[in-house]
């Protein structure tokens, strides 16, 4: 079966005064219909840029998308579409939820207006039908007394309720793909759980494929079929959710998992942070971008060769030159040097 979304060789860079920032470097992945894919990575790893590039919401310039890049949605390359064709996809076929519900809704329009807008545009509904559908949607996302709230403005809703409104807006035209860019980051923990439950329920009821972008491995754990980890604009590990957590094969993923506190662990398990900072995206190192921070690194090898994603087990791919597992003993490394190298790389060229 052809996947719903297939991203081939996606490269995105930004022109800045400090040089060309290579935000996404040759990213390849796919997403099947009805599937939930988690994209995990720290700030600046290129996960949001990837999603914005799929939606073609990046302003060009300063963004530059490589001409070889392809974003195939149901076989159609979105990057080659005319603006008006792309507009028919946005909001209709692919919808998006953003990080901060406090600022993502227009403060001077009622939420009724903001929800019915897409319905009128894409589904050609009249006012009455659109209003009826908007009420249904608000009920679906769990907003009490939906009829009355249609005329309310965003500031009359709490953060969690606003994110529900955003979700209602996003699913209004039954999109095939829902891109949720850090949908719970701006919310407090109990509300996070509610929003994730809501997304799960909607996925079951509507069969929408979801691309869930987050920096929180805990968020994607119970939600995603597959997970891919991004670092420095590249996918460094991808696997089904369970094997990825049980048996991470890329040192970065291992580092991420080691830095999550667990309530169920016995005794005193120390949290191990990943040393250093992500690399400067203007001057990426010639070798593995994670090498300066990697606990398992072997500089002579790692600094000269970029590790490509390779199959380490069936359906499990990792970008590391070595076969590292959680059990691999961490070799002795002079720790201070690690920090120094990473800082140098970060600060030297940008100026």
């Amino acid at each position, binding site marked *: 079966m052809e996947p719903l979304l297939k991203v081939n060789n996606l490269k995105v860079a930004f022109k800045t005064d400090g040089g060309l920032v290579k935000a996404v470097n040759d990213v390849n992945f796919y997403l099947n219909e009805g599937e939930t894919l988690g994209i995990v990575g720290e700030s600046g790893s290129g996960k949001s840029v990837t999603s914005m590039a799929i*939606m073609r*919401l990046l302003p060009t310039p300063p963004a530059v998308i490589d001409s070889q890049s392809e974003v195939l949605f149901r076989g159609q390359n979105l990057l080659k579409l005319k603006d008006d064709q*792309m*507009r*028919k*996809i*946005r*909001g*209709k076929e692919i*919808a*998006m939820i*953003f990080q*901060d519900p406090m*600022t*993502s*809704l*227009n*403060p*001077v*329009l*009622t939420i009724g207006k903001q929800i019915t*807008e*897409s319905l009128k*545009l*894409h589904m050609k509904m009249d006012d009455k039908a659109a209003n009826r559908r908007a009420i249904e949607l608000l009920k679906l996302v769990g907003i009490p007394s939906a009829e009355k709230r249609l005329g309310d*403005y965003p*500031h009359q809703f709490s953060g969690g309720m606003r994110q529900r409104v*955003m979700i209602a*807006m996003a699913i209004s035209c039954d999109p095939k793909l829902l891109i949720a860019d850090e949908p719970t980051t701006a919310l407090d923990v109990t509300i996070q759980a509610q929003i994730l439950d809501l997304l799960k329920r909607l996925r079951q009821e509507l069969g929408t494929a979801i691309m869930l972008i987050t920096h929180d491995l805990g968020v994607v754990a119970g939600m995603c079929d597959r997970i891919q980890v991004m670092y420095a604009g590249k996918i460094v590990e991808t696997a089904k959710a369970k094997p990825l957590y049980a048996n991470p094969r890329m040192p970065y993923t291992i580092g991420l998992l080691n830095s999550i506190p667990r309530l169920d662990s016995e005794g005193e398990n120390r949290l191990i942070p990943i040393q250093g900072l992500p690399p400067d995206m203007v001057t990426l190192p010639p070798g593995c971008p994670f090498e300066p921070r990697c606990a398992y690194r072997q500089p002579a090898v790692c600094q000269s060769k970029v590790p490509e994603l390779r199959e380490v087990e069936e359906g499990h791919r990792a970008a590391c030159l070595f076969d590292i597992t959680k059990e691999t003993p961490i070799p002795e490394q002079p720790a201070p040097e690690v920090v120094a190298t990473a800082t140098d790389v970060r600060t030297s060229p940008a100026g």
Partner: protein
Amino acid sequence: MTKFIIRRILISIPVLIGISFLVFMIMQLAPGGPMAAFGQNPRMTAEQRAAIAHNWGLDKPVLEQYVTWFFSMFRGDWGTSFVTRQPVTQLILDRLPATLLLMLTAYIIQQLIALPLGILSALKRYSLTDKVLTVLTYIGFSMPTFWLGLILVYTFAANLKWFPSGQITNPRDPAFNSATYWPWFAANPLTAIGSLAAHLVLPIITLIVVNVAADSRYMRSSMLETINQDYIRTARAKGLKEGTIVRRHALRPALLPVVTNIALTLPALLGGAVVTESIFQWPGMGLLFISSITAADYPVMIGIVFLLSAFILVFNIIADVTYAIIDPRIRY
């Protein structure tokens, strides 16, 4: 909302009283005081001056004078001009129409030019259009009004003779707003309006150049700020057309600060433009104010200053109310 407006009006009453007190006291501090108009008259003896001062209550304590003045202002008795012996209210009412005609027309034209230019500049940021507009803006912004006015008179009135050099009507026609003017206006509406329009052109250009520059910059920055908001990205993600996004999602939030700015500058409409009215001898409030100052015509001066203060107060209320109407987040 009604409650808010009523409260806002009630609060402004003590403010108005405070303003009247300040205005009155500042006038007392001016050299010569209210008797300055008679100070230079060599034929007047000290006894005569004392008699005038006594008659007008100017020998009483200042606070008592203020209270008397305040209550007579309140009753609508604003005194008589030292120069023309006409009631001050009459003088002001005579001059208001000319000022309103000039300022209102200028203001409307100014906004009709400035707002679209600002929006255009913001939407096409860093384009050639934006750069050209930016340069023009700086030229306009740094143009001194008195200089521009004189250059316009010199070029388009004196040399090219396209427009009259000043006044509001032609010398042979009845004086503007006089007893004979309106019947004449009714009899020859086309001639009268044409004449008014011709007289308006140069003063309006003089008035709006600086303001168009300032207001279009203001609109530009407000629009730029709005267009980079997250909710505009949301609107784009919905698949809306760029035009719809600007009209439905960006325009209103971008206009919020601009509308307040507009409402706050409106009192100037009634105050007239001192410099422009002087250059073009426009028979408005600005000219009246200048002539009252040079003649030390205290009742007129104080009347105009007080009136303007009151207007500023009123338009502040109007600004607050309009803001509350267009921004649903504001509740009182």
